[in-house]
C-alpha cells in the first residue's frame, strides 16, 4: 500500500495545533512510515506538488489569504479536517467579531500602546500585496466543505494521532473519554 499523502497549514491560528501534533513524540517515527507530507510547515513545502489524501487545517479565516489557502487545500486534498477551536469556531481571533472593523484597525495601528511607538506616522497597511482583512473571522466550514472536526485547544496529541491513523488505515477511530475531555 502506498503511503497516504498529508498536507497541513495554520491559517488564523497560533501553531498550537501543529505543536500538539508534534507532541506525538516518538510516534513521529511511525508517522513517517505511514504518511508522506506535502505542503506543510513541517517539511516547509510551500506549494502543493501533488494531489493529497488528507489536509489538516489549523486556524480559521481572518483574511483573504487564509481563504485562498483554504480553497487550495480543498482543491488538492480528498479529505479536509478542521483541527482545533479556531478552525472549527473561529477561536480566540474571533473575539474581534463583535467589534467594528474600523475600531479593530485603529486600535492595532493607531491607538494601541505599541502602535503609537511603532507607527508614529499612523500608516494603515494598504499595500496591494498584503492580504485583505475580512469583516469577521470565519470558521473553515463556512468557506469550504470540511469533512471532519477534531475539537480542542489544542486537540491533544493522542486525538490527532488516533484520527490520523484511523483515516490512513481505514480503521474505526478510537475515542476514549480521556482524549476528548477538556476540563
Amino acid at each position: 500500500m502506498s503511503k497516504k499523502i498529508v498536507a497541513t497549514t495554520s491559517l488564523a491560528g497560533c501553531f498550537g495545533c501543529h505543536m500538539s501534533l508534534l507532541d506525538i513524540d516518538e510516534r513521529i517515527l511511525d508517522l513517517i512510515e505511514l504518511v508522506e507530507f506535502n505542503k506543510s510547515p513541517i517539511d516547509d513545502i510551500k506549494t502543493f506538488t501533488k494531489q493529497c489524501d488528507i489536509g489538516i487545517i489549523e486556524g480559521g479565516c481572518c483574511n483573504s489569504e487564509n481563504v485562498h489557502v483554504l480553497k487550495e487545500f480543498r482543491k488538492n486534498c480528498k479529505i479536509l479536517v478542521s483541527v482545533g477551536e479556531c478552525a472549527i469556531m473561529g477561536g480566540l481571533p474571533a473575539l474581534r467579531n463583535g467589534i467594528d472593523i474600523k475600531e479593530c484597525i485603529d486600535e492595532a495601528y493607531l491607538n494601541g500602546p505599541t502602535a503609537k511607538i511603532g507607527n508614529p506616522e499612523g500608516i494603515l497597511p494598504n499595500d496591494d500585496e498584503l492580504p485583505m482583512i475580512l469583516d469577521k473571522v470565519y470558521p473553515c466550514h463556512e468557506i469550504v466543505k470540511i469533512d471532519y472536526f477534531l475539537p480542542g485547544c489544542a486537540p491533544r496529541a493522542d486525538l490527532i494521532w488516533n484520527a490520523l491513523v484511523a483515516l490512513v488505515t481505514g480503521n474505526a477511530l478510537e475515542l476514549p473519554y480521556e482524549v476528548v475531555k477538556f476540563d
Partner: protein
Amino acid sequence: MKATLQTIIEKHQKDATRLMDILLDIQAEHGSVNDEAIALVASQLGISKVDVEQTRSFYHFFTKESAGKYTVYMNDSVVANMKGKAEVVKAFEKEANCKLGSVSADGLIGLFNTACIGMSDQEPAALINGKVFTNLTPAKVKEIVAGFKADKCVKEMITEYGDGQNSSELIKSMVKNNLMKKGAVTFSEYKTGTALRKVVEMNADQIVAEVKTSGIRGRGGAGFPTGLKWDFCRKEAEPVKYVMCNADEGEPGTFKDRVILTEVPALVFEGMTVAGYTIGAKQGILYLRHEYKYLVKYLDKVLEDLRTQNLLGKNIAGKQGFDFDIRIQLGAGAYVCGEESALIESCEGKRGEPRNRPPFPVQKGYMNKPTVINNVETLAHITKIIEKGGAWYKGIGTKESAGTKLLSISGDCEKPGVYEIEWGMTIQQMLDMVGAKDVQAVQVAGPSGTCINPKQFGRAIAYEDLATGGAMTIIGNQRNLLKDVVHNYMDFFVDESCGSCVPCRALSVLMKERLEKVINGHATKNEVNELVEWGSFMKLANRCGLGQTASNPIITTIQNFREKYDALTKDTDYVSEFNMETAVAASCAVVGRKPNLEH
C-alpha cells in the same frame, strides 16, 4: 438615592432570599438598578456584588441604565408580528425619534422588544411602564407619544377598559378577557369557600384519594398526575413545606392563566389552600410573571378578602391549627422561570437557572423544603374537584385526559380568545369553532410544542394525542412559515436560554443560523438532515424542558413541512454563503485600498 435604597432594603428585612423584591422595588423607584445600587444592596445583604449583579443581569426587566422615563416594551411574538407590529414599531421610532432597542437622546422614551406578554388575542401589544396597551396602531402610537411629551402619567393614557374585572378599580386595564367559551370546570358557577369548608372535614388521605380519582394532570403542559405529586410531597418527613402556584405564563401564545387570575383568582387561592392543608404547608407563593404586574393590587385585595372570610390565615374555616397564607412573588422577565426548579431559584432571589433533578421539588424545593408546584389552572380545578368530587371530574373529557382544558387561541382566525373545552376535541373542530379558514399550520402548545400540518387536523387535543398547556397559534396560508414563524421562535429560544447547558446556549444559535441559511436558499439537503441530528442532541444533553424543546420549532417543521425545506435547499454536496467582495469591503475602505479580488 441612597436613602430610598436603604428604605427599600430595610422594607425587605435585608433578606437575601428576597433579592427579587428588592431589585424590583429599586427598578420601579429609580428606573434602573445601577452599580451604585448593586454595591449598596450587596453590602447590606451580606452577599457579594456578583451575587446581586447576576440576578440583575438575568432578568429582562432589570436594567443597568435608565430605560427611559417612559419605557415601551413591544411584544415581539409571532402573532404580534402577524398583526402589524412592524408598523407600530416604525410609528414609535418616528414619533419618539429613537431606534428600537434604545432610549431617545433626551432620555424620555425607551423602545425595546420583549418576549410574548400574554396578549396574543389582542395584538399588537406593548407594556408601557408596566401598563398593558393592546391593539396598537400607528395612529394610537402618535397619541401615546404625544402623551409622553406632555408629561402625562401612563395611567391617564388608558381611557377605555376591558371587560369583566379588567375595568374594576384595582385593575383599570384595557386588556380584554375574550372569554369565548365557558366550560363545566374553570368558569362554572362557584361559591368561594365551599371546597375549603368541605376539606376541613376530610383528612389528607381522603383528599389525595379524591384528587387521584379525578385523574387530573398538570395543566402547565407536562401533564404530571397532580394526586401523585401531592402524595409524594405529603410523605416527606420534613415538617416545613410549601405550596407554589406557577403563574409565570411565558409560553408564547398562552394567555389563559391571565384570564383565570382576572376573573376567578379566589378559585386558584382556594386550590392552593387545599394543597397546603393536604401536604401540611403553612405558606404558599403565587409566582406571577412581571408582565401581569398590573394584576397585583387586585390579587392582593382578593387575598385580603379571603383572610376576612377566614378562608386564609389562622384556623381556616374554623379548623383549629389549619393555618395557611399566600404571598405574591413577582418575576422580572424570564421565560425559563416557568420551569419549576428555575421558578424556585427565582423565588429565592437568584438567577432563574433550572436545578439538577433529582432531588425533585417535592423532595427539596423552595428553601430546600418539600414543595408542591402547580399551574394556575390545575389549582383552580382542584377547588372544583373538592366541591363536586373526583368522579364528576373524571366523567369529563377522555380516558387519559380528565376534565376540561383552557385553550389560548390566537393567530389567523376570526375569534381569538380563551376557550374552555373538553379534552378530546379535534384540531379541525377547534378551527371551525374559532372561525379559521385557509390554515397552513397550527402551532400546538407554543414554540416548545409541535407544528402540525392540515393532514393532522383530525388529531385530538388530549394527553394521549396532542398534549398541550393550551397555546394554539393558527398560521394561515398567507404566512411564510419558516421566516415568519419558525425563525421568530428560534430567536425567542436563543434569547431565553439561561446559558447553563452548552448545547442550549450554543447549538440553538447554530440551529438558528442554519435556518437562516435555509431561508436564504444557500443550504443543502444534507444540512437540513444535520439539523435533525442536532435536535436529538438538544433533547439528550440539556438539563431542563426549555433546552430539550428549544429545537422543536425546527425539528417539528422538518417532520411536518419537509417540502418547505426541500423547496429552499439544494441537492448538492456543499454551498458556502461566503462572499469575498462583501467580506473585505469594510476593511479596505478603512485602510484606503481598492479590493483586489484576483488575489
